[in-house]
């Protein structure tokens, strides 16, 4: 599906295509961010969601979940906190309704999956694979920035071992030619060690970053503002942290400390210039999250702004800009054995 569509929604001034690996080529690098775009129908009222490189859905778990009580959000300077608590319909409803709808409008889908245990992740991945609309899936994002019940609610992404276990189990459940992306949390001492653990466990790429843990006090009521007490900080406020995380991991790849895989950048992107920052730091694709709440057309607007900016700068291929701020190019990406054998 991705291949059939890769000539649509590109720009004749520049080659915007993005190779996620295993022949999954996206027509352009722009994506929604998980949890900031629901599952497509709402934004499709503002723009054709198939115009995006890929549509990333809200993280889905095994069963339906109510999420947390309210208030679930607090506005902060140039950002916001959320504590949704992964509300969702459960994977069965997702594959029955949401995924087929996205397929029906021609979207390339990067479903985001979550779990409270590594076996829940595996179950969700297996159910996804069995979906009749699985052909629309260009990759799977594994949201390991969620609490691990087996480890006192410590998020998987804070621990290399727990992260690796989830990734390895999910990798087993999905066909080899469907790339999986580990979505990392910035709330760690060394993000490169988590990135390395994920890639070694079978992640074909990395998505960075999830929200930062934050908190707002309601000074009228003198108690935590959010029903869930702490929440995830997102929006332009955190962009410098996202750029740094992408830069560090890309640097570690250049130094051979992490195998070279594509990075999907996310965090604080509001304009084409912001997206370019993440790309120049090393991201092969860019997701727009919180900015969508300010402007429901943001993901496509950012795509157009980024395209214009690159054309203005004289680039002919988007791929030439990826990691450009590092100066030196990355070592060539080794072609995996099973990919070579298919050629």
């Amino acid at each position, binding site marked *: 599906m991705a291949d059939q569509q890769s000539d649509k929604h590109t720009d004749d001034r520049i080659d915007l295509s993005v190779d996620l690996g295993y022949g999954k080529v996206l027509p352009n690098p722009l994506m929604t961010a998980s949890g900031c775009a629901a599952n497509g129908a709402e934004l499709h009222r503002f723009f054709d969601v198939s115009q995006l490189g890929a549509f990333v859905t809200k993280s889905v778990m095994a069963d*339906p979940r109510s999420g947390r009580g309210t208030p679930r959000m607090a*506005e902060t300077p140039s950002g916001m906190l959320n504590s949704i608590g992964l*509300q969702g319909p459960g994977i069965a409803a997702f594959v029955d309704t949401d995924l087929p709808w996205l397929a029906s409008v021609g979207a390339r889908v990067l479903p985001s999956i979550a779990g409270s245990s590594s076996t829940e992740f595996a179950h969700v991945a297996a159910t996804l694979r069995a979906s009749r609309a699985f052909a629309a899936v260009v990759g799977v994002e594994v949201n390991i920035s969620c609490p691990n019940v087996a480890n006192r609610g410590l998020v998987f992404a804070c621990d290399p071992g727990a992260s690796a276990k989830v990734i390895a189990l999910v990798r087993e459940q999905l066909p080899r030619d469907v790339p999986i992306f580990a979505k990392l949390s910035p709330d760690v001492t060394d993000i490169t060690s988590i990135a390395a653990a994920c890639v070694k466990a079978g992640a074909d790429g990395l998505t960075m970053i999830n929200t930062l843990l934050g908190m707002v006090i309601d000074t009228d009521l003198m108690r935590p503002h959010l029903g869930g007490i702490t929440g995830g900080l997102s929006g332009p406020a955190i962009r410098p942290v996202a750029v740094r995380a992408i830069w560090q991991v890309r640097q570690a790849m250049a130094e051979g400390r992490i195998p070279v895989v594509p990075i999907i950048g996310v965090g604080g992107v509001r304009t084409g210039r912001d997206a370019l920052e993440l790309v120049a730091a090393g991201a092969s694709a860019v997701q727009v999250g919180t900015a969508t709440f300010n402007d*429901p057309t943001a993901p496509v607007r950012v795509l157009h702004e980024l395209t214009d900016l690159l054309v203005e700068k004289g680039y002919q291929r988007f791929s030439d800009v990826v990691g450009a701020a590092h100066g030196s190019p990355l070592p060539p990406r080794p072609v995996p054995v099973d990919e070579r054998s298919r050629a």
Partner: protein
Amino acid sequence: MSSPPARARVAKEVAEVIATRRVGAYQHLTLVSPEIAELARPGQFVALAVGDESSATLLRRSFSIHKVSPSGTYGGTVEIVVSAVGPGTRWIVARAPHDLVDVVGPLGKAFPVPTEPVPCVLVGGGYGSAPLFWLASQLRERGCHVEMVLGAASEDRLFGVVEARRSCDGVTVTTDDGSAGHRGWVSDVLPDLIDRTGAGVVYGCGPMGMLRSITDIAGRHGAVAQVAVEEAMACGVGVCMTCVMPVVGADGQTRMVRSCVEGPVFRGDRVRWDAFDGNHARVPDDAVGAPRTGGH
């Protein structure tokens, strides 16, 4: 979230402010917004961006649509009534004529209108009355007898008393301090009014506490309550899941539903008022997917 909603049309427009005037404690703004004016129905709302591209305020602010004029000298207009309570609303009320504001709408579900010409009572608390005059006209066009109750803390916080007299068959005013109309709450006058008019539907818009009591009273007096709620909304368009409330569905099950797309108008008796405590709402234990002990 499970089944993709029907694709209701919605627009994003950069609207010129063509009029702004003080009305008691509120600011009444008229925006040139032809697409939204064309599409909107009473009970729906618009979401306005605050500040320019470099604003630290990222989230839109929501306002009930007070009135639309689908065509006019300037093209269609949309009117809103704003109470300045914080930085976002203060920025909005400070807009001068010819300033531009970024508007998304119409959002949410409109007030359902009865198919039969049943008597109706419309209850507005403070600026909550804003969307009701337009609703009143539509109801009367359908032959409904329409009475309105306007309540507020004090006279300056009442909105639209004159307009109410023009658009309704009867108007009752209450203020907490007695500065206008009956001294007291709308709930003091509502029971008699329902009984006297034989109202089949009570429409309400205002603070949550008032909506809850409207629901109780309507239920006890044989009427259906349709209430427009206000929950903190990050996106207003259904993508963020921040604006949820516990609401009982047609299947009898409670779910945390998005008030921006499945509301803001809900049947009062479907709202799980028992879960609310000030501006906090718990997830009821019997809600679909509620956290289990030891679970999420």
